[in-house]
């Protein structure tokens, strides 16, 4: 390319000749212009290449993320789960503490109320129903999000692994909770729930957005504090499953769902 364009301007044409001085000046100007054009083309090519390489690297990263992480979790569904939990904790407060709507004051008769079998049964049914409702909501909204953004939503090995890794700590926690309730250690059930739910979230961080683990850390922290405080079980349950979900859901929506 370079040599081709240089050939017409051989040096003989540049020898200074008084008769041709104006012509020579114009040819040398044309020569300079050619050099300038060549340089700019070279820079342009280099720039194109750089952009290509950048795009290549971006594609690789995107494909790795897309293939290995479940990206369809909807931030709004996390907020909705938090709202469910707030309502459920109010209902639980009614169940445990009777019609007294001052939820977070330590009361001795809460323990007495929980000891009656019907109230326990209703509390367990409430918790199980809440879990199923939340699970259904998150799945349905994830499905809708996947459809909207053409994300992958297939029951493949990866998704099953994620669900297994989420349900394993949760299942162990549920068994432990059942054992605690059967033996009458009601005080620890909320902290066990928080701890194992937090562990479940941390456990599946490699299968979805990694920032989900921060919600898990928050739950674990609340669970640990809950272990050592007496009479505030429902307050911590409300903070962990209600408030924390709503806060994290808002942050999550701002971070991941807005830019798409």
């Amino acid at each position: 390319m370079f040599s081709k364009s240089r050939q017409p301007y051989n040096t003989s044409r540049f020898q200074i000749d008084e008769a041709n001085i104006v012509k020579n000046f114009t040819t040398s100007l044309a020569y300079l212009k050619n050099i300038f054009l060549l340089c700019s083309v070279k820079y342009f090519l280099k720039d194109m290449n750089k952009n290509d390489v950048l795009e290549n690297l971006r594609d690789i990263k995107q494909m790795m993320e897309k293939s290995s992480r479940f990206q369809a979790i909807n931030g709004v569904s996390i907020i909705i789960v938090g709202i469910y939990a707030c309502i459920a904790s109010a209902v639980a407060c009614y169940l445990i503490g009777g019609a007294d709507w001052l939820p977070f004051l330590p009361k001795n008769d809460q323990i007495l109320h929980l000891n009656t079998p019907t109230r326990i049964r209703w509390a367990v049914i409430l918790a199980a129903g809440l879990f199923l409702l939340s699970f259904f909501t998150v799945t349905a909204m994830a499905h809708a999000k996947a459809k909207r953004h053409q994300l992958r939503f297939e029951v493949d090995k990866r998704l099953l692994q994620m669900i297994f890794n989420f349900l394993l700590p949760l299942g162990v926690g549920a068994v432990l909770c059942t054992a605690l309730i059967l033996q009458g250690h009601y005080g620890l059930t909320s902290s066990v729930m928080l701890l194992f739910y937090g562990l479940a979230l941390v456990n599946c961080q490699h299968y979805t957005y990694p920032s989900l683990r921060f919600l898990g850390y928050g739950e674990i922290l609340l669970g640990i504090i809950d272990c050592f405080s007496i009479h505030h079980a429902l307050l911590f349950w409300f903070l962990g499953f209600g408030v924390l979900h709503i806060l994290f859901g808002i942050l999550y929506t701002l971070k991941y769902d807005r830019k798409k």
Partner: protein
Amino acid sequence: MIDELNGFNKAFESKARLGIMSILMANESADFTTLKSLLGLTDGNLAGHTRNLEELGFIQSEKRFIGRKPNTTFSITEAGRSAFTAHIAALETFLKNNS
């Protein structure tokens, strides 16, 4: 400019192959239909690319039957892993030299 491009692996020039390699780098293994839906390729196209990569020794395939349906899973080999890492390193040095 041409000297810098020498480090790039010719096998990874097409977008589809780059995609296959990056999926297999990030996952333990992936089956044919997953690759197809992720990359948006046709059956024949994907089969050609995977066969080529397999001949180069970068990926390996395992064929088996689930019920009566044939199922092919692909995974990356050691050679493929090192070649891909070298390719990415070449891309990055190219970027560093030209920024």
